[in-house]
């Protein structure tokens, strides 16, 4: 990794400790440990679509300044939503010098943001800087036979200008899954929105959307679904709990973070897995059986 600062975001600290722990362990194995950005603040959560609403860009720009202060030239996020907000904000503010000037003048207690701090999602780092071949090289317990659905959601891919892959035909997660020797299971709703923060006001709508995603993944034959977003995780797990009672016995879907999947393949302990996932791991060949 170049000189990168890791931006956790609030959800990672409050609700998705398993995501952070597994990502930290995996990056350690890959020889590029995550270094947390100092004094980071909330990313801003929802990117403001109003053209002249500079106030709602402050949170993101302040984080870019924090990166600049510590000499980092990139910010790496795990949460897809933080990635989306930070990157869109960066593009928006760097597009127009008048915007940047106003924001810098307002934040007169900070050094000026000079532009140029890059924002990446961890998956991009894995693909472009670590390389999927290197990841494959670190696998000690191949996930052979494990059928994994790549769930992108929307914030990793859209809008196109900031997306980490083709919005309609993404392959990055499938490639990642293959690098761990698992089988990617493509499904129709892999880049559909889970309903996001509408869970607060319209839980029924969110459950309906999430239901469609889970059904689609299960019909395609997935045992596991991986995500990169704590909010998707929240909605999908909530929906899965509702769905579970109507599933035939032994038909389960484990919903985990993509870095938990890698941690299993690297055989690093990162804390508890969902019961169904732990069962699947037991059924995997052990590292000893790998030796030719």
């Amino acid at each position, binding site marked *: 990794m170049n000189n990168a600062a890791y931006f956790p*975001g*609030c959800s990672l*600290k*409050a*609700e998705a400790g398993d995501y952070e722990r597994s990502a930290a362990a995996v990056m350690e194995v890959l020889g590029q440990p995550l270094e947390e950005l100092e*004094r*980071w*603040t*909330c990313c*801003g959560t929802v990117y403001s679509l109003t053209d002249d609403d500079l*106030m*709602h860009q*402050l*949170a993101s720009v*302040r984080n870019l300044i924090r990166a600049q202060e510590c000499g980092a030239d990139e910010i790496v996020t795990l949460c897809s939503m933080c990635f989306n907000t930070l990157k869109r904000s960066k593009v928006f503010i760097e597009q127009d010098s008048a915007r940047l000037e106003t924001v810098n003048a*307002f*934040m007169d*207690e900070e050094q000026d943001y000079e532009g140029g701090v890059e924002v990446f999602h961890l998956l991009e780092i894995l693909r472009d800087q670590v390389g999927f071949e290197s990841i494959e090289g670190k696998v000690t317990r191949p996930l052979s036979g494990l059928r994994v659905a790549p769930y992108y959601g929307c914030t990793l891919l859209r809008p196109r200008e900031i997306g980490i892959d083709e919005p309609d035909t993404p392959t990055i997660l499938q490639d990642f899954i293959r690098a761990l020797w698992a089988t990617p299971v493509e499904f129709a709703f892999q880049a559909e929105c889970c309903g996001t923060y509408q869970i607060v006001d319209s839980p029924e709508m969110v459950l309906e959307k999430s239901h469609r995603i889970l059904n689609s993944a299960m019909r395609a034959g997935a045992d596991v679904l991986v995500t990169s977003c704590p909010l998707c995780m929240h909605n999908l797990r909530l929906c899965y709990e509702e769905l579970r009672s109507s599933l035939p016995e032994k038909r389960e879907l484990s919903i985990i973070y993509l870095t938990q999947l890698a941690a299993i393949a690297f055989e690093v302990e990162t804390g508890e897995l969902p019961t169904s996932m732990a069962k699947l791991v037991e059924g995997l060949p052990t590292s000893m059986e790998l030796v030719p």
Partner: protein
Amino acid sequence: MNTSSENTIRIYVMGSAYEVPRGLTIMSAMEHAGWRFTRGAGCRSGFCGACSTVYRQEGDYRLRFVLACQTEAEDGMYLVQLPFTPAPRVSYTLAELNPDENVLLQHYPEIARCVSCNTCTKACPQDIEVMDYIQAALRGDIAQTASLSFDCIQCGLCSMRCPADIKHYHMAQMARRIYGRYMSPVTAHLEERIAEIEKGVYEEEVEALVKMTRSELEEIYAARVVE
């Protein structure tokens, strides 16, 4: 315009000009000018947070925020006092709280409105990183919220300035209380001392002190062992 002489400065209180001696605190300068504080003055030592003051320096566009009892009056200050902050405070029973990472957000949901503008920090006369502790609260870090807000004197200036209407200081007080009740380490010697007090070990000594005359008390005070 330089209005000062060798020994006096000119300050403006509620728009009226007053010549006052140089070297006084804002509070003393105002009293010298004939103002009497019926609200907005308390300990006069920088601890109670009652004397929140907003001022602007002649020729500057910025508003500045200080405590009247702790800040020297300067020539060309336009002053206004803010003796009360009408901020709502949530009621809760500390012993019945579930001190998880969402407890602050549940009681003070408006902290989620923070856009990181940092106006609160600029308004703090105690130089506390106010926005940073709001951000810590948002991600459920109670210990960090308590630690960063430790020097807060509850003056309320942060909340009066916040464009998101956050009630920083009440939320932070809640964080410190939760930290004290659920998270700070228990000290063994304190537990032992409480047990001794409950057993009545010190009652005789206290009774003897109560019966002493002032001069006897002064004598033993002067002779006390200072660690």
